């Protein structure tokens, strides 16, 4: 429980740093730290598989691509129109807060202890069975969608191909 609060507080601090840092590389590194801490939260919730996948995919691969793009483009050129972005960002944040409040108040308050996790919860066997037996069609549709997106990106980037 103490561990949860420490982790939660740290991840809130780092996610605030993502927004308030001036330097885009510092922001990106703060986001990496946030994702890492959320992964540790998954570990404490008996879901090691999800936690490590979070590090592998988000903190490892996707954030490196973010950094790659930030380093290749000169980020100082994107510094203009601050007021507009502030307005847009605060509006989005407000909508999210209202939505979260509505959702959380809709969940009935739970009495006493939270139920213990089932045997084999979060194990690769269970995840695989759920993904490839119960949800195989959505899974395949999602992978085709990703393939279309990749092909589209290549076509857009290499017009003279």
């Amino acid at each position, binding site marked *: 429980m103490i561990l949860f609060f420490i982790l939660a507080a740290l991840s809130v601090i780092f996610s605030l740093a993502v927004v308030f840092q001036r*330097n885009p*590389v*510092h922001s990106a*590194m703060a986001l*990496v730290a946030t994702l890492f801490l959320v992964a540790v939260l998954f570990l404490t919730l008996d879901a*090691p*598989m999800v936690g*490590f*996948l979070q*590090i*592998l995919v988000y*903190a*490892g*691969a996707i954030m*490196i*691509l973010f*950094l*790659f793009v930030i*380093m*290749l483009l000169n980020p100082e050129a994107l510094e203009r129109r601050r007021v507009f972005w502030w307005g847009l960002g605060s509006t989005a944040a407000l909508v999210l807060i209202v939505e979260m409040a509505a959702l959380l108040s809709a969940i009935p308050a739970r009495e006493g202890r939270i139920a213990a996790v089932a045997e084999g919860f979060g*194990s*690769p066997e269970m995840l695989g069975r759920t993904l490839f037996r119960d949800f195989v069609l959505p899974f395949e549709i999602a992978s085709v969608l990703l393939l279309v997106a990749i092909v589209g990106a290549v076509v857009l980037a290499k017009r003279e191909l």
Partner: protein
Amino acid sequence: MIVELGIVAAKALLVIFMVLNLAGVMGWVERKGSALIQDRIGANRASVLGFAGLGLVNTLLADPIKFLMKEDFIPPRGDRLLHTLAPCLALFPALVTFAVIPFGDVLMVGEREINLQVANINVGILYIFAMASLSVYGIVIGAWASNNKFSLLGGVRGSAQMISYEVAMGLSVIGVLMVYGTLEPQQIVRSQGELLGGWLPAWGILLQPLAFVLFFTAAVAETKRIPFDLPEGESEIVAGFHTEYSGGKFLMFFAGEFAEMVTSAGLMTTLFFGGWQVPYLVRDGFHFPWGTIWLLPHLAVVLLQVGMFTLKVVFFCWLFVLLRWTLPRFRYDQVMRLGWKMLLPLALLNVMVTGVVIVVLHNGS
């Protein structure tokens, strides 16, 4: 409770101690090995307190002292915080990955069973890849924080190369996971103790030879050593991502590379060469296929297994050094072509063929 924690702490300390020391010794082996290959004598000048007798010990002492006494330079227009953070990010993943690599079977002390592995996670292989994917940050952040064109070029090269080869590396391991049917490193090693046809140990190299070739190539690329040392490329971009590093921080990058090498060697041993398995050695001694049985005390068996594991790891470390001093460096387009157009399709093919063979064998029996 206290005893359990103490055991885990002792195992963690032992593993960190072994990895760091092996990394240090490898620094000396690299210098002496290069000298051997190039017909020189190599590293014999270090004399501590006027005593130059023991080459190994003196060089091991003198190298770090020299590094630590040097000026720690941070580029004035660079980023102080990230410049300092980067070497730590480079060293950290290499040191923690070894936590899930088993270095022995269980050790019995009285009634207590001690699993000779720091952390037994049921998704250990996933943990290894998660940590490996974090090792890119040291290079990228170090390169960017140096505010130097050559550093940045090295960092961009490094990140692209490591992401590319991570894909091939991950896919090549899938075949091994399919054969042994588990994500636990300790379980993979146990399965490799079985005998094929009654006499051939079921090591990964025999069941998945293609996967080993792919994994080995990708592992060399991940450690950024010749022939894949494009991020450093001293004849093109000065010293790449660590151009602006000196003193202790450079030492950390350097130690990180060697620790990564030791960890890769440990991984190859675990996945493809039977980990701590000694052929025909089971818990109570040797059981040879021709019927001879040598009974051994428990402690001797455990020591043999840990010794065998260390021997295999050291062998692969030596192979890395040998490769580095015999091969020329690739061109960058060749690195990308090898990764995406050869290793990746071959790894996919390996997964498919393995799947078909497993299905056929299961239906046949």
